[in-house]
């Protein structure tokens, strides 16, 4: 009889230990998941100021004057390529960390939108180069004439249109970033719900295991006393 109770006690102890270990593992996993989500949110939120920076950089080139640098800037100096590269890297990093299909898809849409942005930036760069070459040749052929001013003015509409398109794509990207962040918040909520349920289950399990352990201990104690008396 005693050996049976001891066996039961061992089974209970091992069971409780395993349950505790599993609970601990899940708790660690849950914290890690939370940390990953937070990291992803930080990465995605970091894209927004970069987009603002890109808009300012392009505007600096269009207006031929960068107030930050206090001088005329060219396309090469604007650093727009580097900004786009940084955005793409962030998107790729987040994409690699994401498991959910809808979130991966949203990242794919963001990646495509940034490609769109890069393409439109290239269009404006080409227009800018063309303008510069036109101005140089006019300056050479008709030095000091009104032709140069007329030529510069002729590019204004085109430049405005191209800049407007860039702003439009930046808006689209910002909207999609917001949509992605909403998906992350929903994911965090789902994780919390899962965690809450798991915790409730674990508390119930511990309560049952504790009760059983107490009964077993009492039985063991009674059996020990009975043997002593005998």
């Amino acid at each position, binding site marked *: 009889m005693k050996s049976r109770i001891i066996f039961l006690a061992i089974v209970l102890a091992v069971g409780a230990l395993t349950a505790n270990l599993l609970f601990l593992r899940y708790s660690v996993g849950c914290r890690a998941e939370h940390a990953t989500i937070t990291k992803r949110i930080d990465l995605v939120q970091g894209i927004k100021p970069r987009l603002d920076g890109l808009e300012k950089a392009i505007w600096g080139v269009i207006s031929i004057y960068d107030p930050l640098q206090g001088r005329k800037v060219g396309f090469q100096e604007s650093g727009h390529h580097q900004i786009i590269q940084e955005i793409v890297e962030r998107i790729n990093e987040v994409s690699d960390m994401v498991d959910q299909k809808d979130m991966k*898809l949203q990242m794919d849409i963001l990646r495509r939108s940034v490609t769109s942005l890069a393409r439109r930036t290239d269009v404006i760069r080409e227009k800018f180069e063309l303008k510069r070459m036109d101005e140089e040749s006019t300056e050479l052929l008709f030095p000091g004439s009104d032709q140069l001013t007329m030529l510069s003015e002729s590019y204004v509409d085109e430049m405005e249109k191209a800049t407007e398109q860039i702003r439009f794509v930046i808006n689209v990207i910002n909207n999609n970033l917001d949509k992605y962040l909403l998906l992350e918040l929903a994911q965090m909520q789902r994780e919390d719900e899962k965690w809450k349920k798991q915790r409730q289950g674990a508390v119930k399990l511990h309560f049952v295991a504790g009760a059983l352990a107490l009964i077993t201990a009492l039985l063991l104690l009674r059996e020990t006393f009975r043997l002593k008396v005998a």
Partner: protein
Amino acid sequence: MERFMGKKAGLVLCGLLVLAFFCAAETLVQGDTQGDIILGFVQVSAEGTWRMTNTKSIKKAAEEAGIHLIFREGENNYSNQIKEMRELIAMGVDVLAFSPSQVDVWDSVLEEARDAGIPVIVLDRAINVTDSSLYLTHIGSDMIEEGRRAARWLLAYMKTRKREQDEIRVAILEGVQGSTPAVHRNQGFLEILDQYPQYKIVQSEPANYIFSKGEEVMSKFLHLEDGKIDVVFAHNDEMALGAIEAIKKFGKQPGTDIVVIGVDAIKKALEAIMKGEMNCSVECSPLLGPQLMEAVRDVVKGRPVPKRVVTVEYDYDETNAAQEFPNRTY
């Protein structure tokens, strides 16, 4: 003992298999979006039975085909539609499809799509563009033919009533002004009736495809013409059903005193035909989703697609409406 060990080993193996299955299932659920087709679609509006059925058909077909659909809606306004299309172009969708609210105005946005290398599919209504290469294919009904079918049905009907020599006074309830169905259905209808001078168009006005507007405009027509209208041709069934209400309120019998012809062949119209309140509905099927998805797949795979895909449709009157009624889902 050996048997017991065998049982134990079996149980452990089963456990491992279940675990392996769940791991595999998780991988499947997580999936990957690489290689997924993204289709951007801009619908005209969310109004009316026909449009809602069309939307449902597109969403269901996309889901079944495993195509990711980004669905947008233009609130019956072409500038909203253009804005949505530009947004989808900026997102770099694989294929852009839209159901145009107007015939013209699409050149510039389609040029943007072409510059971005995005193929365009026109669904349902046709468009007028300076360069037809701006879109890849047009899937939908031949709306000029729909107008012709309505006129041909009317001529045949009047012949059976031995009224082919009588003067027939026709009223038309038009769709949204400038919209493709309104322009094309009118064009086809008049093209046939113009050959018969006894047919007089006494009233024609837009009622914007809406039931209440159809009732309101038809009521106005009846008062203006002192009830002397023989036929009403509505550019869709919703307006035709509205006209039926106006005719009843005016004290006349729709389907008998005034011939009522509609377009779309929605369930309610077939029901009205069965009741004898409506005479004919020319079908214009909204179930274009499967055809659209097939075209999207072909486009993405680089297969050739025909420039025009016309949907097969029928006319419904007292002879066949009851037969079709149980099959109609919209």
